[in-house]
C-alpha cells in the first residue's frame, strides 16, 4: 500500500469519530433532577431559576411528593418579576395538578423560572420533584471534535497532494507524449 493511502485512511479515521462526537455528544441534551420546596402558607411559593445557556428549548416533568395538587408555572424574567411583586402576570406554562409535563420550544428567553405554589392544601410543606432537559454544548467535546476534524482534514489533503504529485511524476517519467505530436511533417495535402 502506498504511503499516501495511509495518510488518507488516517485522515478519515479521525474525521469519522470527530463527526460522531460532534453529532452525538457535543450538542446532547442535559437532564437535571431537582426539587422545589413550598413552605406552608397561603402566599408561599418555591421557585427555581434555570439558565437556558443563551436560549433554547426546555422540557420536563413535575410531581408533588405528597400527591396533592399544586400550581406549577414556567415564567420568563418579566413574568417572574411581576409574580414576585404580586402583580397580575401571564405565564409560558401553567398547570394545576399533582404531576405533569411541560415543554417550551420558544428560544427567546435567557433564563426562566420554574415556580410551584400550593393549590389545595396550604398548611404543609410541599416538596415538588422536577426534572428538566436542556440542550447544552459540551465545550470539551466540541474542542476535541474540531481538533480531529482539522487534523484529519490536513491529513486527507496531504494524501491528495502526495497522490497527485506521484501521478504527475510517474507520468513525466513514463509518458512518450506530453505535447501535441505531428507524425508527418509534410505540408497539408491538397
Amino acid at each position, binding site marked *: *500500500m*502506498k504511503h499516501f*493511502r495511509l495518510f488518507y485512511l488516517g485522515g478519515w479515521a479521525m474525521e469519522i469519530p470527530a463527526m460522531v462526537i460532534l453529532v452525538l455528544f457535543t450538542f446532547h441534551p442535559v437532564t437535571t433532577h431537582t426539587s422545589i420546596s413550598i413552605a406552608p402558607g397561603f402566599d408561599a411559593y418555591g421557585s427555581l431559576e434555570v439558565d437556558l445557556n443563551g436560549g433554547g428549548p426546555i422540557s420536563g416533568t413535575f410531581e408533588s411528593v405528597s400527591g396533592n395538587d399544586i400550581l406549577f408555572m414556567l415564567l420568563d424574567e418579566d413574568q417572574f418579576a411581576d409574580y414576585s411583586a404580586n402583580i397580575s402576570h401571564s405565564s409560558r406554562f401553567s398547570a394545576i395538578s399533582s404531576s405533569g409535563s411541560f415543554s417550551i420550544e420558544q428560544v427567546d428567553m435567557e433564563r426562566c423560572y420554574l415556580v410551584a405554589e400550593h393549590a389545595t392544601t396550604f398548611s404543609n410543606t410541599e416538596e415538588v420533584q422536577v426534572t428538566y432537559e436542556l440542550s447544552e454544548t459540551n465545550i470539551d467535546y466540541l474542542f476535541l471534535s474540531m481538533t480531529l476534524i482539522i487534523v484529519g482534514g490536513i491529513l486527507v489533503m496531504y494524501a491528495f497532494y502526495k497522490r*497527485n504529485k506521484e501521478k*504527475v511524476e510517474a*507520468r*513525466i517519467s*513514463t*509518458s*512518450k*507524449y*506530453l*505535447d*501535441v*505530436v*505531428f*507524425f*508527418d511533417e509534410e505540408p*497539408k*495535402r*491538397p
Partner: protein
Amino acid sequence: MAERRIGLIPNATTNARGADDECAILATDRRLIVTFEKPQIRFKQGLRNYFGKEADAPPIPPATVNYATVDLDQLGKMPQNVVIPYFVVEKFALHMTLGVASIDVKYRNEAGKSLTFTAILVPSEPLIKKNKMEGIRRRDTIKEYGQKCQELFKRALPSSLSQNTEWMS
C-alpha cells in the same frame, strides 16, 4: 492506400462517457481515434482498485502506447475508444473560450443517430509543470497547446470539412 497518421493530441478532457475523462486524440487522414486514459470503471471496482494492489498496475497504460507504430485498426476496435471517420462528420468546430481550446464534432454513428463529441484541449499537468520549470507560464502553455491542436486539425481534416470550419484567429 494505407491510412496515414497526421498527429496526436496526447491530452484532452471529454464527457463522452458520461463523466469527465482524460483522453488522447489520434488524427489520421481518414478518422479521429479517441483513446481513453482509463477504462470505464464502476464504483465497486474503483474502490477495489484504489485500496488493493491492482491500483499499482493500471489495466491499460496509454502513456506507454507508441502511437507512431500502434496498429490503427486494433486501436480503433478497442471497446473503450471512440472512432469518428471524417465522412460521417457533419460539422467540426474549434472554439477558444477563456484561453482554452475546445472542439465540437457533430457526426452520425453507424445507426444514423446524430451525436456530438465535445472535448476540451488542455495540456496535461506534467507538460504545464515541465514548461513552468523552463519559465513558460501556464496560460501560455495552454494557449500554445490549443494553437498546435488547431494546426493538427487543419492538416488532418479533409478540405471539404476544413473549409467549413471556423478556426481560431
